[in-house]
């Protein structure tokens, strides 16, 4: 049996195969939740939203809502039979405001009506009076008021004060980072169907069906086995449908069980953007001591995050920020102070990178400033601070005490430095800038080291269910969710190879809590690592049973039974897989199996924040070149070179898609995407960047005219699925190179030694301000 447990030869794994649903996507036949044929009697839900940022509800008059045409049911907090909570960790996230409004737009009540339009119209007919309470809308106000969703956190190593005091140079700085709207193209949606004997089924666009199941059960005052949650695919998630799909799943289920009718809750785009949280804005402050080469002796950080009104995932997001302030660099003496600020805004949440990007920005801001103060190329300062691949150097332990064992970054950066012609281009850019007073160019190379695994150790498990039917076709279920990242495509390749079958013989089932229970969120880039292994285990179990049974029949050893190209072969035997499956069924061989996987080696103490939280690291680096107009602050990304580590790629086309898409999304966060709320007046706190008309994610012209992306030739040192590496989040942080290239261009405009105070997003206005205008 040992031979059977080894990985199978890769016939389909490693190939640049199309997305498993691509043919459906392009023809409009891929079914999203809103595309399902509506069941008879379906009602449509809409929420009534608060129009103050912080206030006590004095009067909530819903008579006109109830009287509106088509309205069937209206619910407030008082009507919720179970827990009025959508919070995943702390119960501080009401589904419907209960007495107090905590952000502008918060859901006050929910209405079900005969049509989507009738529900929306009715929801606007409420009469609400508020007793205004003081609203905290900015990070500064929150810090001054010591307004926290969770207590401040610290992580330290070494004597940082002594290191700072003893350093040849000492400097400090501050960088501000904005939030980011997920802008999944498919907005939040849930469709709940009441079923017999107090049960409900919910089709939900979610990254976390199991959590939806539990929160729906809690809201109804039920137990988990009364609720099932299903998702075939999402039209994008990016973290925004990890916890924050819960409110809509719960409200749909509450209305469905109350009315006894199916209820669809689909948020209008503007409402979605106002109601749901975003990437956490941060204020980063630091103080560093360093030598003449820029080598850091000690760094103190203060990472202040805007969590919005509730805890949501802010604890783990901030933990990951703390865990990524090192990025690629060895920090001998380091102290991190992390503030988890409460403001009266929508509750900020998971977003691709999950605090990692903000942590990386902190250290990269330090490095960029140190280089500019010393008059050195930032790449040289980066390099002297890299973790040392040689353990003997004693510079390979992260601040949380994990050893960096597979440090390929120095080699990767060296390769990119040459392939991108970084040095030659920097010289040419300096010459261009010397002769161009109005337009300036800038260039930057930034690295990424990103830890792979959930910090919360228990989430690093996955299950799968593989059915081989008696005609030899395979139905594959696993606990991960497809949101466009290609998870299903990759897992299908793995299972196809396990059976030696063509892809067409493997069909994906929707992710459903009735098929695979106790799933983890499809998040932390871990979907393929976890579910690929679980599905492979399930498939190999079935294959093992087939091999053993056939070996017995044929009088050969089980390891002599080979599954390839749709055939099953053994010495003197050659049959189609379907024929073998049919015969095995007749012989009463179990043709289906579960599979389970838990990530080895990892441990983490959430109190001390020390341990080995990550199975391995994913690496990458990018070079960006930008142009900047000093008259307006407008910028243009001219060229990008990326070299990224995905281990042994399961599917290079999908991996490159993740790299490019992640990069462009990160670029949006740092350039055009500005979350903007009214700062004052009686509608203070109202989100004004509430739709794609006012919130600008990258469009086609923003793609750099030169965009070279390559995969670094590498195999995961850890026993991951086919030695691949996770790819969902790490490439987003390659976009830091865009921000620092803009800063480089701005520094050229301001002159040698300048330290442009550039805030993200680097909108034209932000850039012009850094240049001293506006």
């Amino acid at each position, binding site marked *: 049996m040992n031979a059977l447990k080894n990985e199978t030869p890769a016939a389909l794994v490693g190939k640049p195969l*199309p997305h498993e649903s*691509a*043919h459906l*996507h*392009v*023809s*409009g036949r*891929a079914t999203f939740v*809103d595309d399902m044929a509506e069941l008879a009697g379906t009602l449509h839900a809409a929420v009534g939203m608060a129009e103050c940022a912080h206030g006590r509800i004095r009067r909530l008059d819903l008579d006109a809502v109830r009287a509106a045409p088509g309205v069937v049911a209206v619910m407030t907090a008082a009507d919720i039979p179970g827990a009025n909570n959508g919070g995943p960790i702390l119960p501080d996230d009401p589904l419907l405001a209960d007495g107090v409004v905590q952000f502008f737009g918060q859901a006050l009540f929910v209405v079900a009506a005969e049509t*989507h*339009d009738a529900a*929306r*119209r009715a929801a*606007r007919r409420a009469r609400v009076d508020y007793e205004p309470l003081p609203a905290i809308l900015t990070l500064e106000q929150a810090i001054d008021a010591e307004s926290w969703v969770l207590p401040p956190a610290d992580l330290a190593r070494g004597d940082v004060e002594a290191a700072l005091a003893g350093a040849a140079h000492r400097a400090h700085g501050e960088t501000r980072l904005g939030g980011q709207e997920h802008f*999944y*193209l498919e907005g939040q949606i849930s469709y709940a169907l009441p079923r017999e004997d107090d049960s409900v089924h919910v089709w939900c666009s979610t990254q976390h069906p199991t959590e939806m199941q539990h929160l729906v059960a809690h809201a109804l005052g039920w137990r988990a086995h009364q609720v099932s949650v299903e998702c075939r695919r*999402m*039209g*994008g998630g990016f973290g925004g449908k990890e916890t924050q799909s819960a409110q809509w799943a719960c409200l749909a289920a509450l209305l469905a069980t109350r009315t006894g009718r199916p209820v669809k809750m689909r948020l*209008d785009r*503007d409402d979605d953007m106002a109601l749901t949280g975003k990437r956490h804005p941060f204020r980063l402050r630091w103080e560093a001591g360093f030598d003449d080469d820029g080598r850091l002796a000690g760094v103190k950080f203060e990472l202040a995050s805007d969590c919005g009104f509730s805890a949501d995932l802010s604890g783990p997001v901030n933990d990951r920020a703390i865990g990524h302030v090192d990025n690629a660099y060895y920090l001998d003496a380091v102290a991190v102070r992390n503030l988890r600020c409460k403001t009266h805004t929508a509750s900020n949440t998971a977003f691709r990178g999950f605090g990692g990007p903000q942590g990386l920005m902190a250290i990269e801001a330090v490095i960029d400033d140190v280089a500019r103060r010393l008059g050195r190329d930032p790449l040289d300062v980066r390099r002297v601070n890299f973790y040392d691949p040689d353990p003997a150097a004693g510079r390979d332990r992260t601040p949380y005490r994990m050893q960096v064992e597979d440090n390929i970054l120095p080699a990767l950066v060296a390769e990119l430095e040459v392939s991108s012609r970084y040095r030659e*281009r920097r010289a040419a*850019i300096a010459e261009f800038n010397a002769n161009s007073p*109005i*337009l300036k160019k800038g260039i930057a190379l930034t690295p990424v080291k990103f830890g792979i695994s959930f910090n919360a150790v228990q989430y690093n498990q996955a299950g799968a269910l593989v059915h081989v039917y008696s005609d030899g076709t395979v139905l594959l279920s696993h606990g991960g969710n497809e949101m*466009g990242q290609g998870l299903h495509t990759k897992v299908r390749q793995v299972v196809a190879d396990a059976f030696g079958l063509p892809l067409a013989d493997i069909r994906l089932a929707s992710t459903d809590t009735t098929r695979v229970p106790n799933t983890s969120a499809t998040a932390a880039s871990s979907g393929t690592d976890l579910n690929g292994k679980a599905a492979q285990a399930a498939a190999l179990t079935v294959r093992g049973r087939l091999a053993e049974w056939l070996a017995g029949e044929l009088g050969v050893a089980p390891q002599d039974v080979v599954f390839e190209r749709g055939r099953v072969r053994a010495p003197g035997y050659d049959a189609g897989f379907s024929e073998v499956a049919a015969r095995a069924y007749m012989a009463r061989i179990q043709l289906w199996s579960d599979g389970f996987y838990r990530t080895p080696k990892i441990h983490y103490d959430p109190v001390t924040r020390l341990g080995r939280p990550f199975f391995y690291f994913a690496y990458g680096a990018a070079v960006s*070149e930008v*142009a900047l*107009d000093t*008259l*307006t602050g*407008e*910028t*243009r990304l*001219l060229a990008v070179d990326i070299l990224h580590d995905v281990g042994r790629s399961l599917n290079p086309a*999908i991996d490159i*898609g993740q790299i490019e*898409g992640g*990069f462009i*999304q990160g670029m949006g966060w740092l350039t*055009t995407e500005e979350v*903007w709320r009214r700062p004052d007046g009686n509608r203070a706190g109202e989100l*004004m*960047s509430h*739709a*794609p*008309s*006012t919130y*600008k994610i*990258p*469009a*086609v*012209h*923003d*793609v750099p005219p030169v965009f070279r992306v390559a995969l670094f030739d590498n195999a995961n040192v850890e026993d991951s699925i086919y030695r691949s590496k996770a790819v969902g989040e790490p490439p987003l942080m390659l976009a830091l190179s865009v921000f620092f290239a803009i800063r480089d261009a701005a520094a050229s405009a301001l002159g040698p030694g300048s330290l442009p105070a550039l805030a993200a997003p680097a909108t*034209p*206005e932000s850039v*012009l301000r850094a240049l001293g*205008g*506006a």
Partner: protein
Amino acid sequence: MTRNQIQFYFRGAVRTLTVSSPTRTVLQYLREDIGAVGTKEGCGEGDCGACTVVIGERVGDRLELAAVNACIRFLPSLDGKALFTVEDLAAGGVLHPVQQAMVDCHGSQCGFCTPGFVMSLWAMYENHPHCPSQEAMQDTLSGNLCRCTGYRPIMDAARAAYASPRVELQRGPIAAALEALRELPVLEGREGDARYAAPRTLADLLERRARAPQARLVAGATDVGLWVTKQLRDPGEVIFVGGVAELRTVSNDGAWLEIGAAVPLERAFEELALLHPAWDGLRRRFASGPVRNAGTLGGNVANGSPIGDSMPPLIAAGATVVLASVGGERELALEDFYLAYQRTALAPDEILCRVRIPLPSPEAGRHFAIYKVSKRFDQDISAVCAGFGLTVTDGTIRTARLGFGGMAAVPRRAASAEAALIGAPFCAASFEAAAAAVAADFTPLSDVRASADYRLTVAANLLRRFWLEIGTALPVSIEALEATP
């Protein structure tokens, strides 16, 4: 004689449909009424492109195809036209070349925006028998947002579609089917309180306007559409003007270019670009292809938004507007058309009939530029939009028209800055003086797009940029820069 049923070509035949509400959208019809769910709703405001469909219209004896946003397109405007959605493309189950190219190039990830991209690509493929330039392809896709791919594979697919054997729509039978619809009576109806009509002649329109001055005139509905989908407003009585023949004409008599109020923006910009290439630069950045195909120049001008992008350069070009009523026509300088925030000089019984732009005289020394500053290059609302027109003879600035948008409650000229230029020598110092003066002309707002300070600084700097561009050889456009090799 009138009728209250629309007729349009869809899925291989002419369909007849009773209009339940004049503001029911094409997207609602597709998704909710007939369960054609391939077309998606991403934003409900024409900004993401997930709902992109293609409209076919008979022009002469040809069928012309244009991508539009179904989410803000009102059903009555389909009358007499053809509608194509993503479900129409794969004939007999075989993917169309643009669909196959999207699969082969890995152009979809989550797949939700994909049908919209496919329809934009299909319109491009049909309208361009040969693969267009990179710029034209980007232009085609500027109204489609994708949050997953980063667009590179979609651009690859746009090219790759041309490498397969060509598959073309058979337009002849469709054009013939639409021909039969041309003689139908005027569409007019009433559904509850909602009265609507779609006159075909100016005379009919003006009479209806005189009878119903409260009626809402709707052309492309790229703004009114949002009143319905976002503000849930009931526009009351609606007169659709898109079918009025006189408003769809363009003429050029050698002295003036005249653009009918219901001429789509795309066509209007093409005509304006013949006067000066700066208009093509603005065209590229004005909303998106689908919005420019639906929205009209008259709609942009008459709507009078302080952030409408056509007006500052039209003002700079010396454009006028012709207003018409049953009593006759009158002509106003465009800058005099705007009285206050969203208030114009239109009398209750008047409509905006056409926009007139003087042709530039061929003499040397005439300078014209359009600048748009926004957070994003594609499809964004301006923080500041400026149109500058100048004549210079013998080294002296003779005339100056400086139109600004985003700086005041209406699109407006910068009087102090113009005064600083007129009669001044054509040199940097004069433009510095104008830049200093422009602060006195405007008291802009701070909002989601930019702060007041930024707007004032940029307004002044755009005057500096204008000088650098016309008076020096310095490069001033980042768009013209290339990557360092």
